[in-house]
């Protein structure tokens, strides 16, 4: 099973880095959004400090959605999802493979947009920069876990894109509120105890949606 997940990861990365569809879409979206926000604030103003963490997470949110949608679009375009499901004991491997490939592509995008965000908004950190990097990692896990399951539901039941948006976006609100608050604490500073509160929210989200995806993926994709 583990082996097949890695094969799916490699195959998805090979296709993505060959075609660069979601990478280019996400990077251009992120770049343009950061530039527009950068011109919306006066340099050195206080409001920029309050808004800067929200800007980072808006960009990650929408870039991530583009990546997640592309993950299953590859299977839809090629009608290969049925072929994957025809492989014995493949359901959990498909979930893990898709989760890993979306995560790697999202991290690759973040690797480019994070320094860009720091430079454009002249972000300085009250806490270690590693705290923000850790926040990005834990938020990505929850984001991708939920996104992969909902993309699979969307593909299995042939749902319209709007259904994906209506279900996915509201469910992500607690995760991204936690993300914004943790980033804010590392930029503006604040009580360490309040960071634990937000961190608990994010890790609970991760655990709930990773395990429900892992355990339910088989039933979701079989139920047609």
């Amino acid at each position, binding site marked *: 099973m583990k082996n097949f997940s890695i*094969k799916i990861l490699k195959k998805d990365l090979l296709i993505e880095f060959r*075609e660069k569809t979601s990478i280019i879409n996400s990077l251009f979206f992120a770049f343009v959004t950061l530039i527009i926000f950068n011109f919306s604030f006066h340099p050195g103003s206080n409001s920029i400090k309050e808004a800067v963490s929200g800007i980072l997470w808006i960009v990650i949110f929408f870039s991530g959605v583009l990546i997640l949608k592309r993950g299953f679009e590859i299977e839809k375009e*090629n*009608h290969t999802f*049925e072929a994957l*499901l*025809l492989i014995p004991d493949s359901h959990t491997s498909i979930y893990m493979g898709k989760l890993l490939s979306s995560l790697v592509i999202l991290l690759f995008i973040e690797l480019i947009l994070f320094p860009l965000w720091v430079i454009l908004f002249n972000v300085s950190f009250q806490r270690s920069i590693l705290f923000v990097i850790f926040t990005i990692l834990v938020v990505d896990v929850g984001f991708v876990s939920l996104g992969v399951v909902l993309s699979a539901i969307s593909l299995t039941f042939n749902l319209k894109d709007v259904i994906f948006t209506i279900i996915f976006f509201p469910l992500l609100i607690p995760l991204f509120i936690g993300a914004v608050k943790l980033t804010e604490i590392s930029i503006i500073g604040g009580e360490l105890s309040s960071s634990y509160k937000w961190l608990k929210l994010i890790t609970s989200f991760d655990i709930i949606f990773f395990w429900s995806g892992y355990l339910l993926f088989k039933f979701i994709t079989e139920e*047609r």
Partner: protein
Amino acid sequence: MEILRINKLQKSFGKNRVLKEISFTVNEGEFLTLIGPNGAGKTTLLNCLTLNLKWDSGDVFYKGENLKKVKEKFKKNINYISHNLFLYEQLTPIENLLFFSQAYNLNKGRDEIDKLLKRVNLLKFKGKKVATFSRGMKQRLTILRALLNNPEIIFLDEPFTGLDIKASEILSSLLFQLKKENRSVIMITHNITQAKNLSDRILGLYRGKISFQLERENFHQLEETFLPRVFK
């Protein structure tokens, strides 16, 4: 020997009953063709048998065992060729075949894949993306994909769709090869000539029911007596 037994299979989509108490058997090494007009339920039946769709009632037995209890064992021994190709167009033939062979834990080497590609005259295109292939080339490649796990039963859903005469001939000879290898084949087609050439038995499906079953020795009656029953 009987490899599949389908017993009173029923499937509905909402209020629309697509399959109505379908029963038939498939023997080992038998080439069985399903014909019928659009909307007769052929593809739904094939999707149920390949576990892509859940049926509402009835049973399917694989070598005497209830299919619902031996799903994973069954999956190991079947494969499916549809008019949808189930190939990654962004990858080369080698990359596609390596991926699917690894998916079945077969880990075939590049040399072995080269031999397979040579068998269907695709070796010289092994480095090209599948997206650049003609329909016929893709269909030949998809047959290789479907044979990777050495399946006992192969399901074919309108494999001749979109093929020109030459590509159809190549596909026919590949299907004859499957027959020689004593694999069981269940094929849906609108191509009556190919159905008569390849099949041991033809089943006519009309409005979700089996309208007739015809053995090879009676195929001469197909056009005059039996086809009008399903293509009304």
